[in-house]
């Protein structure tokens, strides 16, 4: 009886050790097309595995892929492999064509979306993240940035996108690739703007697609329209505060407690807390104040008593 017990215990311990080993070291794992071994141009096998795992959660945007000097592939990814109106996260990787290995040192620059407005015969850009930089420390071979599209592709106009890429000193250019920007479904409106003096500001709601019932962090970028308008719009240099008042218009406009005002963070984003007590359509009414506390946008009382400046998010 006792012997048996010891044996089983040993068996479990051994099993535990084996499984620990395989987790700690990515060496020897073979993934189709990618050789996950240490590479001086990239990173440790573990870091490469982390990139690989992350890329399983997003989808490639084929029209933005390019080949640099016949040596490197550059791929762009979004969550769905497509773009939609409002804020989109975009990720880039560069791989060696010979081994499939990721490349650590590469740059994505001058990301420029342009919408051509058919009737007006003019083009305009849209809010874009100031830089496309390293996504995080554990994945040095991954670049991240964002574009917040003002409009979706329609009869009124269509989008082109250009960017420059530099992989280990070799440069290339992707010029005017046609991209489709989809409309958001009914009940989703994640990008709003307001005018302050001669300037137009854009409020891009970053993480609306991740909201769930309960307490959520809410993250926003405030961008300013550029002059000329064909240059991507950078972050606003002015600092604001954004008060939120989430309501359910389909249910008597009830609200939730404990929501906090969005304030500017060191990384340039605005963050606060939003509480969503159930699923359905939430209309997040906004009051934007300048650094002195003056209301500069929204905060007005319409007939139903809520700000006319709002995002719509449907859970």
């Amino acid at each position: 009886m006792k012997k048996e017990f010891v044996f089983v215990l040993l068996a479990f311990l051994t099993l535990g050790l084996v499984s620990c080993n395989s987790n700690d070291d990515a060496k020897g794992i073979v993934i189709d097309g990618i050789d996950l071994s240490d590479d001086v141009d990239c990173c440790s096998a573990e870091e490469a595995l982390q990139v690989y795992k992350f890329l399983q959660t997003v989808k490639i945007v084929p029209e933005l892929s390019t080949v640099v000097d016949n040596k490197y592939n550059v791929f762009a990814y979004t969550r769905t492999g497509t773009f939609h109106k409002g804020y989109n996260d975009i990720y880039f990787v560069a791989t060696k064509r010979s081994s499939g290995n990721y490349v650590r040192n590469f740059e994505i620059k001058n990301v420029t979306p342009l919408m051509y407005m058919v009737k007006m015969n003019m083009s305009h850009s849209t809010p874009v993240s100031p830089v496309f930089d390293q996504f995080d420390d554990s994945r040095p071979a991954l670049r991240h940035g964002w574009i917040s599209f003002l409009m979706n592709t329609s009869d009124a106009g269509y989008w082109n996108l250009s960017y420059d890429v530099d992989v280990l000193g070799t440069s290339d250019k992707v010029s005017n690739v046609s991209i489709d920007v989809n409309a958001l479904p009914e009940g989703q409106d994640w990008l709003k703007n307001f005018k302050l003096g001669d300037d137009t500001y854009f409020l891009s709601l970053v993480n609306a697609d991740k909201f769930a019932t309960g307490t959520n962090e809410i993250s926003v970028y405030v961008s300013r329209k550029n002059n000329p308008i064909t240059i991507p719009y950078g972050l606003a240099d002015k600092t604001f505060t954004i008060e939120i008042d989430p309501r359910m218009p389909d249910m008597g406009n009830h609200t939730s407690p404990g929501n906090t005002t969005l304030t500017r963070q060191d990384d340039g984003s605005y963050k606060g807390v939003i509480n969503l007590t159930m699923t359905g359509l939430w209309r997040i009414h906004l009051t934007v104040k300048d650094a002195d506390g003056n209301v500069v946008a929204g905060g007005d009382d319409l007939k139903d008593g809520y700000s006319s400046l709002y995002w719509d998010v449907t859970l």
Partner: protein
Amino acid sequence: MILSILLLSTLGYSPSDSVASPARSIDEVVVVSARAEGAQRSPKGITASIDEHLSVFRNVNLVRRGAYAWEPVVNNMATERVSTTIDGMKIFYACTDKMDPVTSYVESANLQSISLNSGLNGNPQSTGNIGGSVDLKLRKAGFGNGFNAGASKGFETNGNVQVYEADAAWSGERFYVNGGLSYRRADNYKEGGGRVVDFSQFRKVNAFSNTGLRLSNGGVLEHTLIYDRASDVGYPALNMDVSKAEAVITSLSYRHTFSDSWLEAWDTKGYYNHITHIMDDTKRPDVEIHMDMPGKSSTAGLYSLLTASTDVHQLQLNYDLYYNRLFADMTMYPGGAAPMYMVTWPDVGTLNTGAALTDVVTLGRGQSLRLSAKVAQQWQKLNDEEGYHALRVFFPGMKDSYYQTTGRVAAQYAWESSKVRLTAGAGWGSRAPTVTEAYGYYLNNTFDQYDYIGNPRLKNESATEVNASVRWQPGGGLTLTADANAFLFSNYIIGQFERRLSAMTVGAEGVKVYGNLSHATIINTSVEADWQLSRSLRWHGRLTWASGRDDENDPLPLISPVAYRTGIDFSAGRWTAQVLVEGNGTQTHFGEKYGETRTDAYTVAGLNGQYHIPLKTSSLTLRAGVENLFDKRYTSYSDWRDIPQKGRNVYASLVWTL
């Protein structure tokens, strides 16, 4: 104080050993019996609903939300403070709107008797029974009674109520089986004056079986099964109806009887029950937002009860354990827009285990002492992530699991002589908050039009009870009884205004969050007279008065106003007849603060009679009567949202017994 109602079966077999022993019953109310003359009863007999049987109890009131599934209120305390068990089995309702008190999942034909322990002196299986504990005793054929069968048919003019019931039993020395089927239906009833109360219809089917096997060692194995299904149930006091309320209730028990020992019996029972409750608003006109609101409750448990007796002691030692899961959610469909979903009971798992001891001590010279005590521990876990995260919006520091300890201890002294019986008792007990009180989420209460949110930070509620009664029989067939009890609460749990929150339900007044009041008081008193004027004539009357006050000495809601009931019973040979007058005084102390409105006084009268026809090998019992004889339009304080009671109702029933 222990009361019990006997629902003598239509079968001829003798009551099983599940009936509370008379030694422990201070008062016994017989409901259905041709033989028990002079006893109080539900005049409708077996075709009466469980609710009508319960209304026979002196300290039971019933909250009506329609014609079906009334909520028993004991000593002016409702479900939260009352334990309801079926043969000692725990069962928990599945509707966040209290449409389905667990008494709605049984039929009269399932039961032998209903026993009620007033206050903290509860039956061994009960927990949280500050107001009292109700045990519905199942009707088992028992051994050695041969073959029996019965059938009955009831009819009522108001609402076109139809009741059909049939049962049969085969009872040998080693094996018994009995079972039956019931069907009950009603259309909308008419209030006094003749106006139809829309959405007061219901249908209910019920089937049950009980099986017993005596093993060679003398032990008895018993199995019970109840299937109950109500459909198309209207709730005129609420905004929704019920399309389906279904229960399966089953148990397996083993009873060992000791011979030649001070130990009497050892009962161990394992049980399981499951309730599905589906609400429906599709038949209502002008529904702003259609909603789906299903709920489910399942409970598995066991108890083990050891009984022993000596010349002095009658001991009951009980251990019980149960695990209950409660889940409810709500989906709202605003026309065209995205559905809105929330979890209203976050799949709460409750594991509760307790040990109880009761002892009836015979002290001699007519004196006795009844003692009871119980300690219970409870673990709760919120299994639904979404519901948990939603609640955390309101209680950011809350956890997903909780632990509570509750207990009760009570003693009652009785002294009895040939003419006088005196009792005096005291007790202390606590209860854990219910799932609704602790974790309910935006539950709209149509009583005060507030949305209620549970509070996981609630403290246990506790109460000290004192009670006393005196019964005097001066002779000449006269019995006078006076009875009083008082409950002094600490941390009384009730919904409290939370003006910072906005109501979710369209049209709601606001939001209340359950909270603890530092103290509250509930007092119940009654006086009764019973006068057997002659062998065939008896007069009886009863007057009750109650008071409920919160920590600011304001009236609590749903406390009965002065109520009275008097009647004359006549019996001669195969005939019995009764004239009954009952009513309430004006509810002057109503819980205005809690959204309650004043209810006016009323008096109603009724007549009923019974005729017994013995046949060769069987017998027939014919009952007939009129309720609300003068077709008065009235509502009582416990009629939810003041829905009117039934107008004049003529009923008749025929019971055949083999």
